[in-house]
Protein backbone atom coordinates (compact mmCIF):
# COMPACT_ATOMS: atom_id res chain seq x y z
CA UNK A 1 0.00 0.00 0.00
CA UNK A 2 1.35 3.41 -0.96
CA UNK A 3 0.58 5.99 1.70
CA UNK A 4 2.17 9.41 2.12
CA UNK A 5 4.35 10.11 5.16
CA UNK A 6 2.51 12.02 7.91
CA UNK A 7 1.94 15.74 7.42
CA UNK A 8 -0.16 18.55 8.84
CA UNK A 9 -3.01 19.74 6.68
CA UNK A 10 -4.27 23.28 6.21
CA UNK A 11 -7.01 24.50 3.92
CA UNK A 12 -6.56 27.94 2.38
CA UNK A 13 -9.60 30.05 1.65
CA UNK A 14 -7.97 32.73 -0.53
CA UNK A 15 -4.67 33.49 -2.26
CA UNK A 16 -3.64 35.81 0.59
CA UNK A 17 -4.57 33.17 3.16
CA UNK A 18 -2.48 30.58 1.27
CA UNK A 19 0.49 32.96 1.20
CA UNK A 20 0.14 33.69 4.92
CA UNK A 21 0.07 29.96 5.66
CA UNK A 22 3.15 29.34 3.50
CA UNK A 23 4.97 32.18 5.26
CA UNK A 24 4.04 30.90 8.72
CA UNK A 25 4.72 27.21 8.04
CA UNK A 26 8.09 27.75 6.39
CA UNK A 27 10.06 25.84 3.75
CA UNK A 28 8.63 22.40 4.55
CA UNK A 29 5.15 23.43 3.42
CA UNK A 30 3.86 22.63 -0.06
CA UNK A 31 0.75 23.71 -1.90
CA UNK A 32 -1.66 20.99 -2.92
CA UNK A 33 -3.90 21.86 -5.88
CA UNK A 34 -5.39 19.00 -7.91
CA UNK A 35 -2.97 16.60 -6.24
CA UNK A 36 -2.21 14.54 -9.33
CA UNK A 37 1.49 15.40 -9.39
CA UNK A 38 2.32 15.90 -5.73
CA UNK A 39 0.31 13.06 -4.15
CA UNK A 40 1.89 10.33 -6.33
CA UNK A 41 5.32 11.71 -5.36
CA UNK A 42 4.31 11.69 -1.70
CA UNK A 43 3.01 8.13 -1.94
CA UNK A 44 6.40 7.06 -3.30
CA UNK A 45 8.03 9.11 -0.49
CA UNK A 46 9.89 11.11 -3.13
CA UNK A 47 8.27 14.16 -1.55
CA UNK A 48 7.78 14.41 2.21
CA UNK A 49 6.38 17.87 3.01
CA UNK A 50 5.61 18.46 6.67
CA UNK A 51 2.67 20.70 5.85
CA UNK A 52 0.23 20.68 3.00
CA UNK A 53 -1.71 23.81 2.17
CA UNK A 54 -4.73 22.73 0.18
CA UNK A 55 -5.75 25.38 -2.34
CA UNK A 56 -8.61 23.70 -4.15
CA UNK A 57 -11.02 26.25 -2.68
CA UNK A 58 -9.14 28.86 -4.74
CA UNK A 59 -10.45 27.28 -7.94
CA UNK A 60 -13.02 30.05 -8.33
CA UNK A 61 -10.43 32.80 -7.75
CA UNK A 62 -7.66 31.24 -9.86
CA UNK A 63 -9.61 29.19 -12.40
CA UNK A 64 -10.12 31.23 -15.58
CA UNK A 65 -9.04 31.65 -19.20
CA UNK A 66 -9.48 35.21 -20.48
CA UNK A 67 -8.34 37.41 -23.33
CA UNK A 68 -7.37 40.96 -22.33
CA UNK A 69 -4.93 43.60 -23.59
CA UNK A 70 -3.60 41.44 -26.40
CA UNK A 71 -2.84 38.46 -24.20
CA UNK A 72 -4.47 35.30 -22.92
CA UNK A 73 -4.45 34.97 -19.13
CA UNK A 74 -4.86 31.60 -17.50
CA UNK A 75 -5.37 31.26 -13.76
CA UNK A 76 -3.02 28.76 -12.11
CA UNK A 77 -5.90 26.66 -10.74
CA UNK A 78 -7.44 26.14 -14.19
CA UNK A 79 -7.93 22.42 -14.65
CA UNK A 80 -6.71 20.39 -17.62
CA UNK A 81 -10.28 19.70 -18.62
CA UNK A 82 -11.10 23.42 -18.70
CA UNK A 83 -8.07 24.06 -20.93
CA UNK A 84 -9.13 21.24 -23.27
CA UNK A 85 -12.68 22.56 -23.52
CA UNK A 86 -11.74 26.24 -23.92
CA UNK A 87 -13.13 27.79 -27.08
CA UNK A 88 -10.73 30.74 -26.67
CA UNK A 89 -7.66 28.49 -26.59
CA UNK A 90 -8.95 26.44 -29.53
CA UNK A 91 -9.19 29.64 -31.55
CA UNK A 92 -6.06 31.51 -30.42
CA UNK A 93 -3.64 28.93 -28.99
CA UNK A 94 -4.60 25.48 -30.35
CA UNK A 95 -1.30 24.06 -29.05
CA UNK A 96 -3.02 23.80 -25.65
CA UNK A 97 -5.79 21.66 -27.13
CA UNK A 98 -3.25 19.42 -28.93
CA UNK A 99 -1.39 18.91 -25.64
CA UNK A 100 -4.41 18.49 -23.39
CA UNK A 101 -5.85 15.73 -25.57
CA UNK A 102 -2.81 13.62 -24.69
CA UNK A 103 -2.24 14.62 -21.06
CA UNK A 104 -3.11 11.68 -18.82
CA UNK A 105 -6.79 10.70 -19.17
CA UNK A 106 -10.18 12.40 -18.77
CA UNK A 107 -10.56 11.50 -15.09
CA UNK A 108 -7.12 12.82 -14.17
CA UNK A 109 -7.80 15.94 -16.26
CA UNK A 110 -10.83 16.63 -14.04
CA UNK A 111 -8.48 17.33 -11.12
CA UNK A 112 -5.01 18.30 -12.37
CA UNK A 113 -4.24 22.00 -12.87
CA UNK A 114 -1.91 23.98 -15.12
CA UNK A 115 -0.23 25.60 -12.12
CA UNK A 116 0.36 22.24 -10.48
CA UNK A 117 1.85 20.79 -13.66
CA UNK A 118 4.21 23.75 -14.20
CA UNK A 119 5.31 23.91 -10.55
CA UNK A 120 5.94 20.17 -10.34
CA UNK A 121 8.22 20.65 -13.40
CA UNK A 122 8.39 16.96 -14.21
CA UNK A 123 10.78 16.58 -17.18
CA UNK A 124 8.12 14.59 -19.08
CA UNK A 125 5.33 17.05 -18.30
CA UNK A 126 3.77 18.64 -21.40
CA UNK A 127 2.63 22.14 -20.46
CA UNK A 128 6.14 23.42 -19.64
CA UNK A 129 7.16 22.98 -23.29
CA UNK A 130 3.85 24.43 -24.47
CA UNK A 131 4.34 27.53 -22.30
CA UNK A 132 7.98 27.88 -23.37
CA UNK A 133 7.12 27.65 -27.09
CA UNK A 134 4.43 30.33 -26.89
CA UNK A 135 6.65 32.64 -24.80
CA UNK A 136 4.48 32.55 -21.69
CA UNK A 137 5.07 34.87 -18.75
CA UNK A 138 4.48 33.47 -15.29
CA UNK A 139 3.10 35.60 -12.48
CA UNK A 140 4.52 34.57 -9.10
CA UNK A 141 2.96 36.07 -6.00
CA UNK A 142 4.31 36.47 -2.49
CA UNK A 143 3.19 38.50 0.50
CA UNK A 144 5.44 41.33 -0.70
CA UNK A 145 3.90 41.49 -4.15
CA UNK A 146 4.11 39.98 -7.60
CA UNK A 147 6.91 39.29 -10.02
CA UNK A 148 6.69 38.16 -13.61
CA UNK A 149 9.21 35.76 -15.15
CA UNK A 150 9.50 33.96 -18.47
CA UNK A 151 9.88 30.18 -18.81
CA UNK A 152 13.69 30.47 -19.05
CA UNK A 153 13.77 31.97 -15.60
CA UNK A 154 10.87 29.92 -14.24
CA UNK A 155 12.10 26.47 -15.19
CA UNK A 156 15.29 25.80 -13.22
CA UNK A 157 15.52 22.09 -14.02
CA UNK A 158 13.68 18.88 -13.24
CA UNK A 159 11.30 19.46 -10.29
CA UNK A 160 12.77 22.91 -9.72
CA UNK A 161 11.22 26.27 -10.47
CA UNK A 162 11.71 29.94 -9.63
CA UNK A 163 8.80 29.80 -7.18
CA UNK A 164 10.50 30.42 -3.82
CA UNK A 165 9.36 29.49 -0.31
CA UNK A 166 6.35 31.57 0.62
CA UNK A 167 5.39 32.21 -3.00
CA UNK A 168 2.89 30.75 -5.42
CA UNK A 169 2.27 30.78 -9.15
CA UNK A 170 -1.00 32.60 -9.75
CA UNK A 171 -1.27 33.29 -13.49
CA UNK A 172 0.13 32.38 -16.89
CA UNK A 173 0.12 35.16 -19.51
CA UNK A 174 0.61 34.58 -23.20
CA UNK A 175 1.01 37.52 -25.56
CA UNK A 176 -0.96 37.06 -28.78
CA UNK A 177 0.71 37.75 -32.12
CA UNK A 178 -0.93 38.36 -35.47
CA UNK A 179 -0.91 35.37 -37.82
CA UNK A 180 0.33 32.98 -35.19
CA UNK A 181 -0.04 29.24 -35.33
CA UNK A 182 0.95 26.66 -32.76
CA UNK A 183 0.96 22.89 -32.44
CA UNK A 184 2.04 20.06 -30.12
CA UNK A 185 3.09 16.59 -31.28
CA UNK A 186 3.75 13.75 -28.84
CA UNK A 187 4.64 10.07 -28.91
CA UNK A 188 3.55 7.97 -25.95
CA UNK A 189 3.66 4.24 -25.35
CA UNK A 190 -0.03 3.98 -24.62
CA UNK A 191 -2.95 6.32 -23.98
CA UNK A 192 -2.42 8.46 -20.92
CA UNK A 193 1.27 7.72 -20.46
CA UNK A 194 4.01 10.29 -20.06
CA UNK A 195 5.72 11.38 -23.29
CA UNK A 196 8.46 9.31 -24.86
CA UNK A 197 9.21 12.58 -26.64
CA UNK A 198 7.17 15.58 -27.70
CA UNK A 199 7.62 18.88 -29.52
CA UNK A 200 5.88 22.22 -28.95
CA UNK A 201 6.00 24.85 -31.69
CA UNK A 202 4.61 28.36 -32.11
CA UNK A 203 5.20 30.31 -35.33
CA UNK A 204 4.13 33.78 -36.40
CA UNK A 205 4.35 34.75 -40.05
CA UNK A 206 4.24 38.10 -41.79
CA UNK A 207 4.33 38.74 -45.54
CA UNK A 208 5.16 35.12 -46.20
CA UNK A 209 8.16 34.92 -43.87
CA UNK A 210 8.57 33.48 -40.38
CA UNK A 211 8.75 36.40 -38.02
CA UNK A 212 9.06 34.55 -34.74
CA UNK A 213 9.40 30.87 -33.89
CA UNK A 214 9.23 29.15 -30.52
CA UNK A 215 10.34 25.52 -30.20
CA UNK A 216 10.44 23.55 -26.95
CA UNK A 217 10.85 19.81 -26.46
CA UNK A 218 9.48 17.49 -23.79
CA UNK A 219 11.25 14.55 -22.08
CA UNK A 220 14.46 14.67 -24.14
CA UNK A 221 16.77 16.73 -21.91
CA UNK A 222 16.55 19.83 -24.10
CA UNK A 223 17.04 23.43 -23.00
CA UNK A 224 13.88 25.38 -22.13
CA UNK A 225 13.69 26.42 -25.79
CA UNK A 226 15.69 25.24 -28.80
CA UNK A 227 17.37 28.57 -29.61
CA UNK A 228 19.45 27.48 -32.59
CA UNK A 229 16.49 25.83 -34.31
CA UNK A 230 14.33 28.88 -33.67
CA UNK A 231 16.95 31.22 -35.15
CA UNK A 232 17.25 29.04 -38.26
CA UNK A 233 13.61 29.77 -39.10
CA UNK A 234 13.34 33.47 -38.46
CA UNK A 235 13.28 35.80 -41.45
CA UNK A 236 12.85 32.98 -43.96
CA UNK A 237 9.86 31.83 -46.00
CA UNK A 238 8.41 28.60 -44.55
CA UNK A 239 9.22 25.45 -46.51
CA UNK A 240 9.62 21.72 -45.90
CA UNK A 241 13.41 22.05 -46.21
CA UNK A 242 13.45 24.84 -43.66
CA UNK A 243 11.36 22.77 -41.23
CA UNK A 244 13.58 19.72 -41.73
CA UNK A 245 16.73 21.70 -40.94
CA UNK A 246 15.20 23.34 -37.86
CA UNK A 247 13.98 19.93 -36.63
CA UNK A 248 17.46 18.49 -37.16
CA UNK A 249 19.02 21.33 -35.13
CA UNK A 250 16.48 20.95 -32.32
CA UNK A 251 17.00 17.18 -32.08
CA UNK A 252 20.79 17.51 -32.27
CA UNK A 253 20.80 19.91 -29.30
CA UNK A 254 18.64 17.58 -27.17
CA UNK A 255 20.14 15.13 -24.66
CA UNK A 256 17.71 12.24 -24.25
CA UNK A 257 18.59 9.32 -22.00
CA UNK A 258 17.84 5.65 -22.59
CA UNK A 259 15.19 4.28 -20.26
CA UNK A 260 12.12 2.04 -20.27
CA UNK A 261 10.46 4.40 -22.75
CA UNK A 262 13.13 3.93 -25.40
CA UNK A 263 16.77 4.37 -26.32
CA UNK A 264 18.40 7.78 -26.60
CA UNK A 265 18.80 7.33 -30.38
CA UNK A 266 15.15 6.45 -30.80
CA UNK A 267 14.02 9.44 -28.77
CA UNK A 268 16.28 11.79 -30.74
CA UNK A 269 14.94 10.44 -34.03
CA UNK A 270 11.36 10.67 -32.74
CA UNK A 271 11.71 14.22 -31.49
CA UNK A 272 13.19 15.33 -34.81
CA UNK A 273 10.20 13.97 -36.71
CA UNK A 274 7.78 15.41 -34.13
CA UNK A 275 9.39 18.85 -34.37
CA UNK A 276 9.06 18.80 -38.14
CA UNK A 277 5.40 17.77 -37.94
CA UNK A 278 4.65 20.42 -35.31
CA UNK A 279 6.37 23.09 -37.44
CA UNK A 280 4.32 22.04 -40.45
CA UNK A 281 1.03 22.10 -38.55
CA UNK A 282 1.75 25.33 -36.65
CA UNK A 283 2.69 27.10 -39.89
CA UNK A 284 -0.42 25.84 -41.67
CA UNK A 285 -2.48 27.26 -38.83
CA UNK A 286 -0.56 30.56 -38.95
CA UNK A 287 -1.06 30.95 -42.69
CA UNK A 288 -4.72 30.01 -42.44
CA UNK A 289 -5.16 32.81 -39.90
CA UNK A 290 -3.37 35.24 -42.22
CA UNK A 291 -5.64 34.51 -45.19
Amino acid at each position, binding site marked *: *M*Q*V*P*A*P*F*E*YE*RATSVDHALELLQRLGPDARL*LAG*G*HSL*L*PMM*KLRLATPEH*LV*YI*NDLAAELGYIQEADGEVRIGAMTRHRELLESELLARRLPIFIDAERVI*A*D*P*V*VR*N*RGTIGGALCQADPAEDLSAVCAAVGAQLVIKGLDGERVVDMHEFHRGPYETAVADGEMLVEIRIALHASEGSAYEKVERR*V*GDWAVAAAAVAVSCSNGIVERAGIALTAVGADVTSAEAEASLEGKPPSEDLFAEAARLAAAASKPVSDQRGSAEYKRAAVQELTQRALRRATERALRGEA
Partner: protein
Amino acid sequence: MQIAMSVNGEEHTRDIEARLLLVHFLRDTLGLTGTHWGCDTSNCGTCVVLMDSEPVKSCTVLAATASGHEIRTVEGLEVDGVLDPIQQGFMEEHGLQCGFCTPGMMLTARALLDRNPDPSTDEIREAISGQICRCTGYATIVRSIRWAAQHSQAQDSKQEVMA
Protein backbone atom coordinates in the same frame (compact mmCIF):
# COMPACT_ATOMS: atom_id res chain seq x y z
CA MET B 1 -8.36 16.00 12.01
CA GLN B 2 -12.12 16.01 11.62
CA ILE B 3 -13.78 15.65 8.24
CA ALA B 4 -17.40 15.58 7.16
CA MET B 5 -18.70 14.48 3.79
CA SER B 6 -21.82 13.17 2.21
CA VAL B 7 -21.45 9.67 0.78
CA ASN B 8 -24.41 8.42 -1.28
CA GLY B 9 -26.56 11.05 0.40
CA GLU B 10 -25.59 10.11 3.94
CA GLU B 11 -23.55 12.49 6.11
CA HIS B 12 -20.42 11.07 7.73
CA THR B 13 -18.20 12.81 10.27
CA ARG B 14 -14.96 11.14 11.29
CA ASP B 15 -11.62 11.85 12.92
CA ILE B 16 -8.89 10.82 10.51
CA GLU B 17 -5.18 11.11 9.87
CA ALA B 18 -4.56 13.80 7.26
CA ARG B 19 -2.69 11.37 5.03
CA LEU B 20 -5.63 8.97 4.68
CA LEU B 21 -6.60 8.54 1.03
CA LEU B 22 -10.23 8.73 -0.01
CA VAL B 23 -10.23 5.15 -1.32
CA HIS B 24 -9.17 3.81 2.09
CA PHE B 25 -11.59 6.11 3.92
CA LEU B 26 -14.45 4.68 1.85
CA ARG B 27 -13.34 1.07 2.12
CA ASP B 28 -11.83 0.79 5.58
CA THR B 29 -13.44 3.58 7.61
CA LEU B 30 -16.94 3.45 6.13
CA GLY B 31 -16.85 -0.20 5.04
CA LEU B 32 -17.98 0.63 1.50
CA THR B 33 -15.86 -1.95 -0.27
CA GLY B 34 -17.66 -1.59 -3.59
CA THR B 35 -15.02 0.99 -4.51
CA HIS B 36 -12.05 -1.10 -5.54
CA TRP B 37 -8.43 -0.35 -4.83
CA GLY B 38 -6.09 -1.26 -7.67
CA CYS B 39 -2.85 0.20 -8.95
CA ASP B 40 -2.39 2.95 -6.35
CA THR B 41 -0.82 5.15 -9.06
CA SER B 42 -3.92 6.74 -10.70
CA ASN B 43 -3.51 4.58 -13.79
CA CYS B 44 -6.10 1.81 -13.54
CA GLY B 45 -9.26 3.71 -12.56
CA THR B 46 -10.97 0.98 -10.58
CA CYS B 47 -11.13 3.39 -7.60
CA VAL B 48 -13.14 6.02 -9.51
CA VAL B 49 -15.92 7.61 -7.48
CA LEU B 50 -17.97 10.73 -8.19
CA MET B 51 -17.02 13.87 -6.29
CA ASP B 52 -19.67 16.54 -6.84
CA SER B 53 -20.83 14.47 -9.85
CA GLU B 54 -17.37 14.38 -11.46
CA PRO B 55 -15.34 11.16 -11.73
CA VAL B 56 -12.11 11.24 -9.69
CA LYS B 57 -9.53 8.57 -8.89
CA SER B 58 -9.98 8.13 -5.16
CA CYS B 59 -6.46 6.71 -4.68
CA THR B 60 -5.15 10.16 -5.60
CA VAL B 61 -7.53 12.25 -3.52
CA LEU B 62 -7.01 12.76 0.20
CA ALA B 63 -10.06 12.06 2.35
CA ALA B 64 -9.36 15.46 3.89
CA THR B 65 -9.75 17.18 0.54
CA ALA B 66 -13.06 15.43 -0.08
CA SER B 67 -14.39 16.93 3.15
CA GLY B 68 -17.36 19.16 2.46
CA HIS B 69 -18.04 17.50 -0.89
CA GLU B 70 -20.61 15.01 -2.13
CA ILE B 71 -19.26 11.57 -2.90
CA ARG B 72 -21.13 8.90 -4.81
CA THR B 73 -19.87 5.34 -4.93
CA VAL B 74 -21.10 2.24 -6.71
CA GLU B 75 -23.25 1.48 -3.66
CA GLY B 76 -25.19 4.67 -4.45
CA LEU B 77 -26.20 3.66 -7.98
CA GLU B 78 -29.09 1.38 -7.05
CA VAL B 79 -32.01 3.18 -5.40
CA ASP B 80 -34.73 1.31 -3.47
CA GLY B 81 -33.99 -1.94 -5.20
CA VAL B 82 -34.08 -0.41 -8.70
CA LEU B 83 -30.82 -0.70 -10.60
CA ASP B 84 -29.38 2.33 -12.34
CA PRO B 85 -29.68 1.90 -16.13
CA ILE B 86 -25.87 1.67 -16.15
CA GLN B 87 -25.98 -1.38 -13.86
CA GLN B 88 -28.79 -2.89 -15.92
CA GLY B 89 -26.77 -2.25 -19.08
CA PHE B 90 -23.70 -4.04 -17.69
CA MET B 91 -25.98 -6.98 -16.92
CA GLU B 92 -27.75 -7.05 -20.29
CA GLU B 93 -24.61 -6.64 -22.40
CA HIS B 94 -22.23 -8.73 -20.26
CA GLY B 95 -20.12 -5.65 -19.36
CA LEU B 96 -18.07 -7.54 -16.80
CA GLN B 97 -16.12 -10.74 -16.45
CA CYS B 98 -14.06 -10.66 -13.24
CA GLY B 99 -15.74 -7.43 -12.10
CA PHE B 100 -12.68 -5.72 -10.70
CA CYS B 101 -12.82 -2.66 -12.96
CA THR B 102 -16.63 -2.53 -12.91
CA PRO B 103 -17.34 -0.01 -10.10
CA GLY B 104 -15.02 2.57 -11.64
CA MET B 105 -16.33 1.92 -15.14
CA MET B 106 -19.93 2.30 -14.02
CA LEU B 107 -19.34 5.59 -12.20
CA THR B 108 -17.45 7.12 -15.12
CA ALA B 109 -20.31 5.97 -17.33
CA ARG B 110 -22.88 7.53 -14.98
CA ALA B 111 -21.04 10.87 -15.09
CA LEU B 112 -20.76 10.67 -18.87
CA LEU B 113 -24.49 10.09 -19.34
CA ASP B 114 -25.28 12.90 -16.89
CA ARG B 115 -23.33 15.31 -19.10
CA ASN B 116 -24.12 13.73 -22.45
CA PRO B 117 -27.21 11.47 -22.46
CA ASP B 118 -26.54 10.10 -25.95
CA PRO B 119 -22.78 9.60 -26.36
CA SER B 120 -21.27 8.06 -29.47
CA THR B 121 -19.12 4.95 -29.23
CA ASP B 122 -16.04 7.17 -29.63
CA GLU B 123 -17.15 9.46 -26.83
CA ILE B 124 -17.66 6.47 -24.56
CA ARG B 125 -14.24 5.07 -25.42
CA GLU B 126 -12.66 8.46 -24.68
CA ALA B 127 -14.51 8.76 -21.35
CA ILE B 128 -13.27 5.39 -20.08
CA SER B 129 -9.77 5.74 -21.56
CA GLY B 130 -8.29 6.27 -18.08
CA GLN B 131 -9.57 2.92 -16.89
CA ILE B 132 -8.20 -0.52 -17.45
CA CYS B 133 -10.11 -3.77 -17.92
CA ARG B 134 -7.67 -6.67 -17.77
CA CYS B 135 -10.31 -9.12 -19.00
CA THR B 136 -10.19 -6.91 -22.14
CA GLY B 137 -13.93 -6.62 -22.17
CA TYR B 138 -13.94 -3.11 -23.57
CA ALA B 139 -16.31 -3.90 -26.44
CA THR B 140 -18.98 -5.16 -24.07
CA ILE B 141 -18.39 -2.29 -21.64
CA VAL B 142 -18.97 0.21 -24.45
CA ARG B 143 -22.10 -1.71 -25.48
CA SER B 144 -23.33 -1.70 -21.86
CA ILE B 145 -23.03 2.08 -21.68
CA ARG B 146 -24.80 2.44 -25.04
CA TRP B 147 -27.56 0.19 -23.71
CA ALA B 148 -27.93 2.45 -20.66
CA ALA B 149 -28.04 5.56 -22.86
CA GLN B 150 -30.75 4.10 -25.10
CA HIS B 151 -32.83 2.81 -22.23
CA SER B 152 -32.52 5.94 -20.07
CA GLN B 153 -33.85 7.99 -22.98
CA ALA B 154 -36.67 5.54 -23.57
CA GLN B 155 -37.51 5.72 -19.86
CA ASP B 156 -37.45 9.55 -19.88
CA SER B 157 -39.77 9.82 -22.86
CA LYS B 158 -42.12 7.23 -21.36
CA GLN B 159 -42.28 9.31 -18.18
CA GLU B 160 -42.97 12.43 -20.23
CA VAL B 161 -45.81 10.74 -22.06
CA MET B 162 -47.28 9.54 -18.77
CA ALA B 163 -46.98 13.01 -17.23
